[in-house]
């Protein structure tokens, strides 16, 4: 497991954001992308890339340390990406390029 956070993931966080500090903030209705991420996590586990239990342990560990400023509901996305990067399943360059393309697609007219 890597010991440093990935820049591409840190950049995703809004500079003004802070992780939730109280239970009321954790009572959060999932956004659609969160539900989609959950399905991705299940598929990664089912098809053998990243086991659900390993991922959940990583979410706890990394969520409390490297990515402690991230809201809890973003942990699955950030930590799953981190794990895939650590295992060299994807590279930072690939992820950056794809995020640029997706962002452009979501904002183009």
């Amino acid at each position, binding site marked *: 497991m890597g010991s440093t956070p990935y820049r591409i993931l840190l950049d995703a966080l809004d500079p003004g954001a802070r992780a939730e500090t109280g239970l009321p903030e954790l009572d959060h209705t999932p*956004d659609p992308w969160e539900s989609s*991420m959950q*399905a991705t996590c299940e598929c990664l586990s089912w*098809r053998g890339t990243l086991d659900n239990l390993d991922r959940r342990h990583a979410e706890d560990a990394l969520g409390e340390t490297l990515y402690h400023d991230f809201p809890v509901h973003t942990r699955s*996305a950030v930590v799953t990406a981190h794990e895939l990067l650590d295992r060299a399943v*994807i590279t930072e360059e690939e992820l950056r390029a794809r995020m640029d393309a997706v*962002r452009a697609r979501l904002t183009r007219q």
Partner: protein
Amino acid sequence: MTQTHDHDHDAHGAIQSSSGVNEFEVLEQAVRELAIEKGLFSAEDHRRFSEWAESIGPSGGSKLVAKAWVDPEFNARLLADGTEACKEVAIDWLDPTGVGTPSDYTYFYVLENTPTVHNVIVCTLCSCYPRPVLGMSPDWYRTPHYRRRLVRWPREVLAEFGLHFGPDVEVRVHDSNQKSRFMVMPMRPDGTEGWTEEQLAAIVTRDTMIGVAQPKADWTATSSPSAG
């Protein structure tokens, strides 16, 4: 103009994106696309998981389709007057049932798929959805991602759900911007000869009635795709 009221729209009827796209939404999609391209799982795997996780409520619609498949006269009644035909499966659009509300209106039309026409539904303005027959709308249906892009790049969006058509099939998008509510009647798949209405209804899943999937004899969305 307030952004929070469902039926307030700006003068151009456009979906206003916020000042920036949500970076986590971008991250999620990027990871999913890379994973699919690298063969870690398929788009259909993902779609099925999402569908299973949210499997509440499309049983009314499924019954309508199954009944239409086995009974040509019901098929004709359903296509001629959807609202009235719903009563034959105990759905009354005028009676809020817990998923139907006054905002669902009472003009319900079933869109029949054929070998040359594939229908798919969207509401660009506010995510209207035929809740009395399909239950609550899926999360993705409500996203600007789907609503803005299905009308503009429908084949790309369908491909993200694992659905592809050649140039001989008309992809017909229905944007339910007024009082009508729509449901797609998918084509009956091979391998279902002699099935009962119940068996047929089980394979008419929510996504097939939105138009982002086609029924298969082996998929009922009632258990996880990885369960056997």
